[in-house]
C-alpha cells in the first residue's frame, strides 16, 4: 500500500442544498411532485486544497461558520464532497465528539467496550486495556454502575480515557479541548503531545490560537468556506489576527479616515464611535477645551498595520495624531487602559515617562510603543487624552478605543507576569 501516510485534499467543495419546502415524507413528495421545489444553495466549502504529510500537525482556524468542522467531517468521510477529492492514507480516528455511542443504560464496563470498538480497537486490545482505562478515568469503584448514574464530568473522563487508547495514524480533533476543566484540558494536551511524539498525523480544529501555535507545524485559515491561506503556523495566525483575513469585520469597524488632512473643526464634528461600554452613554465621552485636538488614534500591529486584534506578547504601537490650531506649550499626552469590566488596569503619560513635549502646533503625532502586550486575552478599552501639566484637559476621549487580545500561550489569568522557573 501507499508508503507514506497522510491526507490530501484537492479542490474540495461542499454545498448544502436547503430546500424552500422540506419534503420529508413519501406523501409530501408525491403531493409536491408537480410543483418545482427550489433550493437555496449554501457553499460551506469552496475549492479547498492542501495536503498533510506523515507526522505533521495542522491546525484549522477561522471564524464560526467558516467551514472548519465541515471540512473535518468530509475528511472523516462522514460527509461527502460535492466536488473535489479527499484521499486519506492510513488508519484514521476522528475525535469529533467524545463518547459517541455511549448508552446511559449500560454499565461503565460495557460502554468502554462499545466505545473502544467504535474507535477501532479490537476485542483483544479491549480486554487487555479495559482495567487501565477505567482506572485512568478514576472510576474503578463504578465499573458496574450504569453510565446514567455517573456525573457528566465522569462520563467525559471515561470517554476520553477510552478514546486515547486508539493508536491511529491520523487523528482528527474538533474542539475536544473546549470541554472540561483546566485539569482535563491539561490531560488532553499531554495526550496530544504523546501522539505527536509518536509521529501521528494530526488535523486540529480550534479557536484556541495559543494551542494551535504551540502544537501545529502548519495551519489552514478558512473564511466563509474559502481557503485563505495554508502555511507555517505563525504566519497564518498572524494573517488571521492582523490581516483581517478570515474574519468578519465587526459592525462599525474603524476604517481609514481622512486622517492628517482634517482640520480641527472637522475632527471635533466627526465624533468617534459609539460608546464601548453601556453605562458610558450617560457620561460624557469626550471633553476638553479643544486647544489640542486628538484627531485620530491608531493601534498598529507589529507589521505597522492598523488593527483591533493583537496577539498576546506581540508589540503594539498607539499612534496619537493631534492638531493644535495655535501653539500650545508643554502639553501632556496620556493613555489609560481598561478591561471589559471597566476596571482601570494601567495609565501613563508623556510626563510620567519623562518625555516632555516642548510645544505643539498644527498637525503631529506621538507614538506610545508597547514592546510586549502583557495581557493574555480579552477585550480592552483605551482612553486617550491631551491635557495641561496641571491636568486641565485639552481633549479627553474616555474609553473610546478598543482592541482585542488573543492568547499566544497557555498561562492563566489576565496579565503576564515576567517570570521563569528554576530549580537548584
Amino acid at each position, binding site marked *: *500500500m*501507499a508508503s507514506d*501516510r497522510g491526507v490530501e485534499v484537492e479542490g474540495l467543495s461542499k454545498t*448544502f442544498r436547503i430546500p424552500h419546502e422540506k419534503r*420529508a*415524507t*413519501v*406523501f409530501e*413528495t408525491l403531493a409536491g411532485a408537480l410543483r418545482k421545489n427550489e433550493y437555496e444553495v449554501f457553499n460551506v466549502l469552496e475549492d479547498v486544497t492542501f495536503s498533510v504529510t506523515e507526522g505533521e500537525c495542522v491546525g484549522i482556524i477561522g471564524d464560526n461558520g467558516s467551514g472548519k468542522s465541515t471540512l473535518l*467531517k468530509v475528511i*472523516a*468521510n*462522514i*460527509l*461527502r*464532497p460535492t466536488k473535489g*477529492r*479527499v*484521499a*486519506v*492514507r*492510513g*488508519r*484514521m*480516528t*476522528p475525535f*469529533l*465528539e467524545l463518547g*459517541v*455511542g455511549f*448508552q446511559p*443504560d*449500560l454499565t461503565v464496563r*460495557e460502554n468502554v*467496550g*462499545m466505545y473502544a*470498538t*467504535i*474507535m*477501532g*480497537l*479490537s*476485542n483483544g486490545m479491549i480486554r487487555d486495556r479495559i482495567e487501565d482505562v477505567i482506572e485512568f478515568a478514576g472510576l474503578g469503584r463504578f465499573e458496574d454502575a450504569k453510565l446514567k448514574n455517573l456525573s457528566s464530568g465522569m462520563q467525559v473522563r471515561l470517554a476520553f480515557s477510552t478514546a486515547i487508547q486508539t493508536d491511529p*495514524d491520523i487523528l482528527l480533533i474538533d474542539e475536544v479541548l473546549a470541554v472540561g476543566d483546566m485539569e482535563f484540558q491539561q490531560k488532553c494536551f499531554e495526550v496530544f503531545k504523546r501522539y505527536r511524539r509518536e509521529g501521528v498525523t494530526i488535523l486540529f480544529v480550534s479557536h484556541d490560537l495559543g494551542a494551535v501555535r504551540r502544537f501545529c507545524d502548519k495551519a489552514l485559515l478558512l473564511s466563509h468556506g474559502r481557503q485563505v491561506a495554508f502555511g507555517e503556523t505563525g504566519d497564518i495566525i498572524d494573517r488571521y489576527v492582523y490581516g483581517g483575513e478570515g474574519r468578519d469585520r465587526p459592525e462599525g469597524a474603524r476604517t481609514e479616515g481622512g486622517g492628517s488632512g482634517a482640520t480641527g473643526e472637522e475632527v471635533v464634528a466627526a465624533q468617534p464611535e459609539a460608546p464601548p461600554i453601556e453605562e458610558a452613554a450617560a457620561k460624557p465621552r469626550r471633553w476638553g477645551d479643544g486647544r489640542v485636538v486628538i484627531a485620530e488614534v491608531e493601534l498598529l500591529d507589529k507589521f505597522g498595520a492598523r488593527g483591533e486584534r493583537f496577539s498576546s506578547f506581540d508589540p503594539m504601537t498607539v499612534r496619537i495624531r493631534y492638531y493644535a490650531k495655535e501653539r500650545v506649550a508643554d502639553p501632556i499626552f496620556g493613555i489609560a487602559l481598561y478591561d471589559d469590566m471597566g476596571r482601570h488596569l494601567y495609565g501613563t503619560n508623556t510626563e510620567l515617562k519623562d518625555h516632555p513635549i516642548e510645544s505643539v502646533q498644527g498637525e503631529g503625532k506621538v507614538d506610545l510603543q508597547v514592546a510586549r502586550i502583557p495581557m493574555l486575552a480579552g477585550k480592552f478599552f483605551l482612553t486617550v487624552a491631551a491635557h495641561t501639566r496641571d491636568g486641565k484637559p485639552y481633549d479627553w476621549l474616555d474609553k473610546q478605543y478598543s482592541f482585542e487580545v488573543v492568547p499566544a500561550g497557555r498561562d492563566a489569568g489576565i496579565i503576564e507576569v515576567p517570570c521563569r522557573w528554576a530549580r537548584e
Partner: protein
Amino acid sequence: MLHRAMALVRGQKLITPTHLRDIYGYRDLILRLAWSDFKLRYKNSILGFFWSLLEPLLMLLVLYVVFSHLMKIQVEHYQLFLLLGIILWNFLDRGTSMGIFGIVGKPALVQKVYFPRDVLIISACTTALMMTALEFIVFVAFMAVFGVAPTAAVLYFPLIFALLFVLVYGLSLALSALNVYFRDVQFIWRVILQAGFFATPILYPITIFPADLQRVVMANPMARIITTSRDSVLYGAAPAAGDLAYVALAAVVILLAGYLIFDHFEPGFAEEI
C-alpha cells in the same frame, strides 16, 4: 484490527468483494452493537427476557384457540405449525422494524464517526436474530413436549433460515435508507407487514386455497420460506428444489436491490438525518 491500513479513495460502491471484506473486518463492532441493543431491549434483566417470550406465546395461545377450535382448521401438530410460522414471521417483522431505524435511530454514530453504514443495518438484523434464537429455544422445548422428533430433513432448515436472513437484511437496507429521506416509510411498512401477516400462510395451511390461487400466494417468498420450513422441521419432508431456488433468487434480488437503494442514498445520511 478493525480498521486496516489501506488507501481509501472516496466514492467507492458498496457491492464489491473489497467491501464485503471490510464488513467482515467490522465483525467486532457488528456483534457489540447487536449485543448492546439486545441487552437494552431486555433492560438487562432476566424478567425482561421472559416478558419478551411471553408475547409470542400469548399470541400463539389466542390464535391456537381461535383457529383450531372455532375455525376447525385440521392440521397435524397445529400448535407447532402455528408457532414456527409466527417465529419466522416475527423475525421478518422485527428484523425490518429494527433495521428501518438502523440509520435514523443512531444519529451520533452516523454524524460523529465513520464506519460503513451497512454495519448498522447488519447489527440491527443480528439483534433480531438473537431474539429469534431465544424463541427457537422455546420452540424446541414445545417440540419435545408434543413428542415431535425431527428427521434428517431438518438439516435444510438452517439453509432456509439463512435465506430468510438475507431477505430481511436486503429489505432492511432499502427501508433504512428510504426512511432517512421519507419518514413515513416506517408507517407504510407497518401497514404492509400487517397485511402480509394475513396474506402469508401462517395461521392456515396453503392448501385451503384452490390451486390457481395457491400459485399467487406462493409468489410471496415468505410463504415459501414458512411452508418449506414446516416441511423440513415438522413433517420430515425435504423442500422442493424449485421452492428453494425461488427463495434463494428472491433473497439475492432483494439483497442487491437493497444495496442499490442503500448505495444511492448513503452519501447524504449524515446531512439528512
